[in-house]
């Protein structure tokens, strides 16, 4: 671990580098792109190339919300599996069985959500 300003040098390089890359991309776009043709189509909201349907502030089905909540819960539970995976060899069979119990508890939650119909779209 060296001292002083030197340790910050890589961060400085990264900041300068990213500024250069972003600046280049934006200015190349300016230089090469066609200009002066603002049309009604061009100022529309962009939806992956499809014709836009409705405004960006429209309401979404409440079902997205339920899906998002389920995703959030099960996604975050994964955080426990990373340290377990790293230490798997040291923990041995006991750790393996404990992780299985953990996953079984998650499975109970998933089965419940499934049977409750939270995974059905209609």
């Amino acid at each position, binding site marked *: 671990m060296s001292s002083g300003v030197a340790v910050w040098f890589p961060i400085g390089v990264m900041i300068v580098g990213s500024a250069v890359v972003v600046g280049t991309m934006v200015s190349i776009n300016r230089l090469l792109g066609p200009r002066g043709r603002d049309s009604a189509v061009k100022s529309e909201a962009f939806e992956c190339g499809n014709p836009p349907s409705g405004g960006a502030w429209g309401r979404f089905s409440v079902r997205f919300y339920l899906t998002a909540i389920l995703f959030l819960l099960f996604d975050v539970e994964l955080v426990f599996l990373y340290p377990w995976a790293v230490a798997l060899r040291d923990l*041995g*069979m*006991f750790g393996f*069985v404990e992780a299985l119990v953990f996953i079984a*508890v998650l499975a*109970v939650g998933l*089965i*419940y959500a499934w*049977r*409750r119909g939270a995974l059905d779209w209609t």
Partner: protein
Amino acid sequence: MNTLNLANLGFAWLPLLPLIAVAVGAAIILLVGVRLEDEDSAGLGILALGVLLVSFVCTLFTIGVNAEAFGGALLTDDYTAFFEIVIQAAAAISVALSLDYAADNGLAGAEYYSLVLFAVLGMMLMAAAGDLIIVFLGLETMSIAVYALAGFVRREARSSEAALKYFLLGAFSTGFLLYGIALIYGATGTVHLDGIRAAIVARAASQPYLELGVGLMVIGFGFKVAAAPFHAWTPDAYEGAPTPITAFMATGVKLAAFASFVRVFMIYLGPAAAQWSGVLWVLAALTMTVGNVVALVQDNIKRMLAYSAIAHAGYALVGMTAAGSAAAVLYYLVAYAFATLGAFAVVIVLERRATAGLRIADYRGLAQTRPGLAAAMTLFMLSLTGVPPLAGFVGKLYVFAAAVDSGHVPLVVIAVINSAISAYYYIGVIVAMYMQEGTPEIEPSGASPGVLIGVAIAALAVVLIGIAPTPYMNAARDAFAAAAGPPAQATAFAR
């Protein structure tokens, strides 16, 4: 690669069985009940009672086994067993009160009863916690389940509103508790309660972090036990929640919060008592006074009982200012829990949809229409006031005596004055029942067997624990002694 051998895992499995039983039971109810109609939820309630009974039997086997599990993260001593039994009893009575209430109100049984059991799991974890991670984990397991239960009647805006207020303030207070634990961890370098005590005794803890951390933890626990000035959520949450859940919140949640509060502070932060006993003194005085004075002007019985719950947290805090032993606090909490459960059971009998039957005025003439119920309610009110020979009186006696022994005479004077004030609103209910003419539109209908059994058990407990307090007080003493460890360690923190 090791082979799996349950006997070689380095800890005893037996003391964990009460917790495992509740967790497995909750999962089973969730999966079995998900396809049932909401009107058929009473069967799931009976199943929940069965799970609590199994857990209780498991707890009975752990009495006298002072073990620890997971490297000291869980302490399964008699202190844990004491609170496990009281929490199981409070939960069982709450479930009994729910049997018809949940079915009548169309509450989804699978979620309702499994959430109650998950909350019980969190409460038991809090009582058993041997490190601050488990304190936090148990607190959150309990709180998240109870937030959902408070808002369970989705048809009513009041219920959702109660849940929102409880949730926002509860989550805020959890943040304080968590930050306090972080600072204590920074001060002592460990989250194990044993290690924290050792660091404080060895004067190895960094003082500013420790003091700030302890202060933030007092705020966090203060919220959960509903101590003033952190009580703002209590009346709203208690009023809006479904009444059996209100009973559960007023007893189970408070018991668990005090179980953790007492163990962490009086035993493991005991050597640093100089930094928190003064704060608790002020908190106790404020909580009693605010609770009792504001209860005087309530005309809704659920709100009145909410402020009464705040006041009783204050009396329990009086017991926590006593150095040395918290056995009086343990006894007091049991006495309080049964009287409160009983009172809420009576409330459920008179309650009608859309808040009718919840005014204290609705209790007029109950002595004529339902003499048995009126007599039981009288018992609960008198016990909460502290009239001999009921449990509440003996509890106050023990708590006040312990505080006087520690030289907190002014605080006990405040407490006695407060008890006198509280008599006014408790006896107001009795006067309404016996000496005022009834309002015919609030005719109490036939109560369900579950509720009546709940009333009977609570009434019996209030009388029995009051008339023959010695075995219960001895159990409380043994429990606290088991948690405080061998006398050699105990001397390090006494006074």
